[in-house]
């Protein structure tokens, strides 16, 4: 009797400890974002004269209007459009290429297939920092500096997603395609009708991570875009930090930051289960 009592007391204590830890952490994690949002609705006069307040005295949208109207030094709508264009095309091409290539490395029979795959995988573990400067030179030779292609194509060389999708295709029983082969189906039919539907959930995760990865990339766009009109929003924010920061236009800095994070937040809201599901994919391989 005493023993069960002490156990339940113990588990209550651990429950409260867990709650306290989680709530404190979540408050610290949420406050900057919320404070950034409320500040984006403060007027410039309030920012310079009233001083610190949690909430704006008057909620105004002037920062957003001013941010959107600036189409010369910090054209944020153009940047957002550039980012959406780059990330969407990039993620789509990654999904197409990765699924076709993974089919080749799992279903086609040719000499040295697995050796080739693991050689590429080994080479890809080489630290990427060495690639940076020559990659710029290659993009320059191709005439892609200051074009969307500079961010769309190089990432297609990646091995991480290919490894993930290949693992899943290896797990699909060969009997499925053998049955189809007996019925006279060719490789493209098997790929399209049998394999593709089965790896769909993985491909969605690959799309989402390629999209957000491309959207949030910073070092590479800062290097390959010098033309203000052509850069994606992450690189644009670096310019904007100087432009608005020098005049202490905190409200406009915040409205720009909020505009820049809305697309990925929306993506998370609509596809939350896939982002969280990705953990099962990861654990399946690494566990």
């Amino acid at each position, binding site marked *: 009797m005493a023993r069960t009592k002490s156990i339940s007391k113990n588990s209550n204590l651990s429950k409260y400890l867990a709650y306290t830890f989680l709530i404190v952490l979540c408050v610290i*994690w949420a406050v*900057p974002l919320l404070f950034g949002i409320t500040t984006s609705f403060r007027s410039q006069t309030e920012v310079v004269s009233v001083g610190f307040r949690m909430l704006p005295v008057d909620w105004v949208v002037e920062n957003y209007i001013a941010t959107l109207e600036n189409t010369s030094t910090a054209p944020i709508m153009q940047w957002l459009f550039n980012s959406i264009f780059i990330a969407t095309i990039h993620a789509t091409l990654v999904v197409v290429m990765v699924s076709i290539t993974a089919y080749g490395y799992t279903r086609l029979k040719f000499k040295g297939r697995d050796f080739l795959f693991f050689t590429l995988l080994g080479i890809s573990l080489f630290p990427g920092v*060495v690639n940076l400067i020559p990659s710029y030179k290659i993009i320059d030779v191709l005439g892609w500096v200051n074009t969307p292609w500079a961010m769309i194509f190089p990432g297609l060389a990646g091995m991480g997603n290919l490894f993930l999708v290949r693992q899943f295709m290896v797990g699909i029983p060969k009997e499925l395609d053998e049955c189809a082969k007996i019925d006279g189906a060719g490789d493209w039919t098997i790929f399209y009708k049998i394999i593709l539907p089965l790896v769909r959930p993985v491909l969605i995760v690959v799309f989402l991570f390629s999209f957000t990865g491309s959207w949030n990339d910073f070092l590479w766009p800062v290097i390959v875009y010098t033309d203000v009109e052509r850069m994606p929003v992450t690189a644009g924010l*670096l310019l*904007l930090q100087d432009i608005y920061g020098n005049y202490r236009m905190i409200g406009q800095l915040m409205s720009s930051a909020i505009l820049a994070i809305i697309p990925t937040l929306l993506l998370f809201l609509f596809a939350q289960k896939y982002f*969280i599901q990705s953990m*099962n994919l990861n654990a399946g391989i690494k566990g």
Partner: protein
Amino acid sequence: MKKFNLKPAIFIGPHLIFFIVFGLLPSLYGIYASFTQWDLVSDPVWVGLDNYKTILFDKDSTFSYQFYNGLKNTFVFVVASVPFLIIIPLLVAAALENKGVKLKGLFQAILYVPGLISASAAALIWGLIFNAQLGFTSNVFGMDIPWAANQPYAWIIILILTIWGGIGGNLIIYRASISGIDKSLYEAAEIDGANKFQKFINVTLPSIRFPLLYTFVMTTAGCFNVFVQPLMMTRGGPNQSTTVLMMYIRDLAFTSGSSIAGMASAMAVLLGIVILIISIFQYVLMMRNSN
């Protein structure tokens, strides 16, 4: 007569071409360029080991100062940030395993979302938090400090930004691994009279040692490439005390008057070697301990 089979070329060929052009070629050229004097425009001129000699041994040269200072600052960042990026998500995952805790999805989403925010937008938002007039720290906590201009505060704001946006990925891996642990292991430990803490140490941690190893190696290697956080929060200051090696490499190759890409490539190769050695060292160390 055996016909050449074109099909594999169609399926794997396109990726192979991209891999060669944007993966293999830049790696090889990056190593080659480190032995040259190169301005990114004309052809590189072979100089043998000169770049390495200057960087490693010529104490009077700015390149040597930049390399050692950048490497030191990168190490400071890695050593200070990696433990937090492992331990905080691990504790969160453990707390979320507690059966009495509700709203798990909400907690997880709040901690995960900053990882989807681009670091440059996050830096603007945290810049406001640490702003002297309007910021949270000065007005709510009364910490009237010019954060970016003083040490150790400059490092602290860089670390906070990094940890805020960096725990989501590892959190998700740990949660998945912990939920996959065989429940009978916990029951056996319970019969032996283990409390929650002992169960965490003796059952949970050993059971997830492979995901732990994986995240430890990947997080460390990722942190060595640090760039955006110090650039946006401190611009490398005060007195270049937060200027990391990636910032010097980028400045030398892309923003100084005439590009010094050969020297920058040599620094990149040295950083790459450091990352490789440390990854291998971590891997061997953890493998040995787990047996």
